[in-house]
């Protein structure tokens, strides 16, 4: 057997089974979901095999005139989800960015210890970490108990089941996602450039805007994307900390599948979430490709 054909066999053995697995169980389901999003919902839960664009119409403004008028509630939920996800990204950045600077300048031992402390919660149960915030925020939770007993307030505050609670919960669980990319670029930052800027007469604030921020931007963008994507379609956090009051895309999709049994409409909603993710990913790949710094995707 020639070297070339032996290498082809090796390659086929290594990649073949996985490719087949992912084609069937990853790309396959996504394709079927896409098809489903263009089918009509059946009366008792199933689907009817006719082309039906009104699943997207219900969201985007051309609802099926046979059944309903256009109701902007879905687009409102979509916008609200984007808003909450964006606020989560912003808050997470605010929490992580200054800390990254502080940790990056510690000694090697302390640095590693801090990174260890930040990574550790990622390995513990997500649902348990969210549950902790229920105990802290609810009417009879820790914060309210403390405020009541200290006499600062007379009635418990509404802390849980608010947008704020959802954002807080998401920031809490996504901290490692934001911190790691941000920290990676902060640590790489060449401090002689900062000194050079100060030496050339720029003040600390201008130096921050003109030197530090642009140089750490790749980490910020990377962190923003990998926090935004799971935040947008999140369903666990709103289900636990948002109660029934705060509806996000994730809960809406869950409802379509498990309660309303309108799978085509649920698929259409999921398609919207997925397209946002794909667009963001594409922008990131193109942008990093242009910078020639696509180290994350290209070994």
């Amino acid at each position, binding site marked *: 057997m020639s070297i070339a054909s032996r290498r082809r066999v090796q390659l086929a053995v290594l990649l073949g089974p996985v*490719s087949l697995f*992912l084609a069937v169980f990853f790309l396959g389901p996504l394709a079927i979901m896409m098809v489903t999003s263009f089918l009509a919902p059946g009366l008792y839960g199933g689907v009817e095999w006719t082309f039906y664009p009104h699943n997207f119409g219900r969201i985007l403004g051309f609802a099926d005139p046979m059944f309903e008028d256009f109701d902007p509630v879905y687009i409102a939920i979509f916008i609200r989800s984007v808003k909450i996800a964006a606020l989560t990204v912003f808050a997470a950045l605010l929490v992580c960015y200054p800390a990254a600077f502080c940790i990056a300048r510690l000694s090697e031992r302390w640095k590693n210890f801090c990174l*260890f402390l930040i990574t550790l919660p990622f*390995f513990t149960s997500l649902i348990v970490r969210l549950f902790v915030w229920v*105990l802290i925020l*609810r009417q009879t939770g820790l914060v309210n108990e403390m405020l009541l007993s200290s006499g600062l307030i007379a009635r418990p505050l509404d802390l849980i089941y608010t947008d704020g609670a959802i954002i807080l919960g998401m920031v*809490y669980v996504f*901290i490692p996602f934001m911190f790691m990319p941000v920290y990676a670029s902060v640590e790489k930052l060449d401090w002689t450039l900062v000194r050079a800027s100060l030496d050339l007469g720029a003040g600390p604030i201008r130096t921050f805007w003109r030197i530090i921020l642009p140089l750490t931007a790749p980490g910020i963008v990377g962190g923003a994307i990998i926090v935004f994507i*799971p935040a947008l379609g999140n369903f666990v956090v709103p289900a636990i900390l948002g109660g029934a009051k705060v509806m996000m895309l994730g809960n809406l999709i869950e409802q379509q599948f498990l309660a309303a049994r309108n799978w085509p409409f649920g698929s259409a909603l999921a398609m919207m*979430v997925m397209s946002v993710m794909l667009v963001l990913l594409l922008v990131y790949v193109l942008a990093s490709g242009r910078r020639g710094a696509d180290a994350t995707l290209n070994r």
Partner: protein
Amino acid sequence: MKIARSLFRGSLLAYTALFFAFIYIPLVVIAVYSFNSNPVNMMTWTGFTTEWYAQVLGFKTTVSENALYIESTGQLIQAVWNSLVIATSTTLIATVFGTAIAIGLYRFNFLGQRFYRVIMFMPMLMPDIVLGIALLIFFVNSGISLGLTTIIIGQCTFLISYVFIVVSARLAGMDRTLENASADLGADEWTTFRRVVLPQLLPGIVGGALLAFIISMDDLVITYFIAGVDVTTLPMFIFAMLRRGIKPEINAIAVMMLTFSFVVASLGLYLRFRQK
């Protein structure tokens, strides 16, 4: 100027301390209050008890009237067992598949390689809920009945990604001239792989497997959609309990889970950081 700088330093340090407080204080709070004897208002301290732990673990001690017991310890144990079975199988499959693909993409150059690499990141980046419902539609349409099998297949789709990334990172850090050196000294391809590539890759494979195991144990969303009615995993069990109402027993379960994963993850991470 000097004062301004040290002031800045100090506030940055204080901020970072707050950052860690934000991460850890909630966990400390729950650990402390899991020993609170107050059955109704869990955040009002009425005394020390280990009753909730005892009840979770199946040896009830005192039965106070207000206490709301978890359905049964048997269900909890079944859920833990299911999670362990799933996590073990998925870890095995995902580790083999993820490692194979990482090595394939590292060793060979072929058309569309870059595209392949991007595709390999997709399952990890795909929002849980999208993948969950896509798998649900797929399994229902293809007539595969929902249960352990579907959960294992479904989790593997994205766990392969994680293993792939961890192993790829390790491969990327490897010095390719070492393989040349081995060949130069007379070792054929297989010997080179066994004696030079694999030993250096092993920490990456173990790390990837550990990550896959932990994520599998913790996965709620995807599992939730494709579990069917008969199978419950540990995260699903807790989620269902939470949705029915907060009880002190959940507190005890939560603390036990936290302790367990802290110990395991600490060991793993400690070894990794030490190695560096």
